[in-house]
């Protein structure tokens, strides 16, 4: 059943590969060894009012811990001068903040209209089959979380998939097994 749509969208995908600009290599992850508290002070200094630093501070905490636990909220609150409840109320508004632990690889598939028209449903189903989980779930080994997300701004180059915030586009269903295998190998290599 994957083949059917893959063929139907083959021309569109080929066109997308031609028009999509080449992306620069990812920059290395910021490995500032200083405590979270100190790094948040640097961010606060950028803004006329310190409240503006709450969202960047939440991001720093999430990058450090992988998700926003009660402890993470306490630390952000301590560093910014707002209450943990306030920080949580802000975080819960935004889709990218994780209020629960997530797999080591967070795989997001855009299912908004443009991606859906060119096979995003098949990409989602292929991930579900390959990983043995449904969208919204994490594998038992803690390696993968699969999410469907709203428009990622890659509409002409869809279906768009991101792995830990890095875009892969276009990403039709038939590329799923290879990617999952590569990520598994990556995890084993690092272990």
């Amino acid at each position, binding site marked *: 059943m994957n083949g059917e749509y893959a063929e139907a969208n083959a021309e569109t995908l080929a066109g997308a590969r031609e028009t999509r600009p080449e992306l620069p290599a990812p920059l290395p992850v910021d490995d500032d060894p200083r405590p979270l508290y100190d790094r948040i002070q640097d961010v606060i200094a950028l803004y006329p009012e310190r409240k503006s630093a709450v969202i960047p501070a939440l991001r720093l905490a999430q990058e450090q811990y992988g998700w926003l636990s009660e402890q993470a909220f306490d630390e952000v609150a301590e560093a910014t001068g707002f209450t943990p409840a306030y920080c949580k109320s802000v975080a819960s508004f935004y889709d990218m903040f994780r209020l629960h632990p997530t797999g080591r690889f967070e795989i997001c598939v855009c299912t908004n209209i443009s991606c859906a028209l*060119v096979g995003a449903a098949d990409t989602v*189903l292929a991930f579900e089959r390959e990983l043995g989980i449904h969208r919204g779930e994490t594998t038992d080994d803690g390696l993968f979380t699969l999410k469907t997300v709203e428009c990622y701004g890659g*509409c002409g180059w869809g279906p768009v998939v991101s792995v830990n915030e890095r875009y892969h586009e276009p990403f039709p269903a038939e590329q799923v097994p290879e990617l999952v295998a590569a990520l598994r190998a990556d995890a084993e290599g690092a272990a």
Partner: protein
Amino acid sequence: MSDVRILLDFEGHRRDIAEYERHGGYQQLRKALAGEPGDVVAAVDSSGLRGRGGAGFPTGRKASFLPKDRKPAYLCVNADESEPGTFKDREIMLRNPHALIEGILTMSFGIGATSAFIYIRGEYRTEFEVLRSALEQAREKGYVGRNVLGSGYDATVVLHRGAGAYICGEETALLSSLEGERGQPRSKPPFPAVAGLYAAPTLVNNVETLASVPYILAMGGEAYAQIGTERSKGTRVFSLSGNVRRPGNYELPLTSTLRDLIEGHGGGAPDGRTIKAIVPGGSSTPILTPDQIDTHLDYESIAEAGSMAGSGAIVVIDDRTCMVQLALRVAEFYRHESCGKCTPCREGTRWGVEIIRRIEMGEARQGELDLLLNVCDRILGKCLCPLGDAMAMPVASYVTKYREEFQRHIDEGGCPFVEKSPITGLYHDMELVR
């Protein structure tokens, strides 16, 4: 079919500042700093440039609303591109980031801004890195920082990442988010020009709008105004997606037609299929039918055709697609993104989704199409921001223009397109269907 291009008139990218400078980059900043701030706004005003975010408001006039000499004042760059179907600001940032930065610097000087903030959506991580590198290069060259090029003008630019919320593309929600709050819109007036970021005078402009500024200054406002139609000036980067042979971003003069874009550049529908519907300005705009493909792409022509030019995102839908599934996807998106502040939007988007879901699943009773139109009508124009309208307008247009197809779902007790529609897999168990 004319091929005037301004913003993306080159192959590859100009991320390297030297490459941008070789093509005249940062000369307009130099010139602007040597002249009067008012000259920048006057040139933009005479160009007739209209905001490329979605509303299409004249940029020069918007800038002129800021009270003179009230400090601090801010420029906020809307790089929160989120309207489904739109991916052109992303390409501009990836390929021509310094045009955006030069536009920010000249416009900041023009309005007397003390600082500029770039609000880039959180998902655009690579684009954030591109802008960060570009800003570092500009800082090293003395274009950003204290006393820019010895002019006495101090330019501060802060790059701020969002965290995933469509509504933050709405300018007052963007300001709430930038202030460290939940991204909820505020009532207008007061408009941001009077009380924006930190209650100071603030100009909010989209990426494409600001990136156009250096080119307008280089060619002169009057020359820019020669391109396009009487009221829609210049070129626009259109995002073409969906069922076409060559999806992508295409910069075209505003005299072009949907046919130029979809057939001329996009190669038309693939595999000999036919076009069933066209989204002309992002998913929030009313749908057009294939017989409207000769509509011009300027703001007025699309309005006359019964829709909106919006964010310049054209989505082509071919004859396999179920319009009810499409409506469901669109409605679900706006329900998910509703900030919850205004009741008609918060409740109406939810009920809209529920009714469309019932229609798709064959659970709807006779009369529910009118109920759906009624729900849309009760949202339209009744909220602080246009998010609720963004569901109500397209959904009402789908029901009105493809009513027979919606009705068939009710009459037949299910979706007649379940086997061939590409969206089916999101809603039905594919293993059971086939």
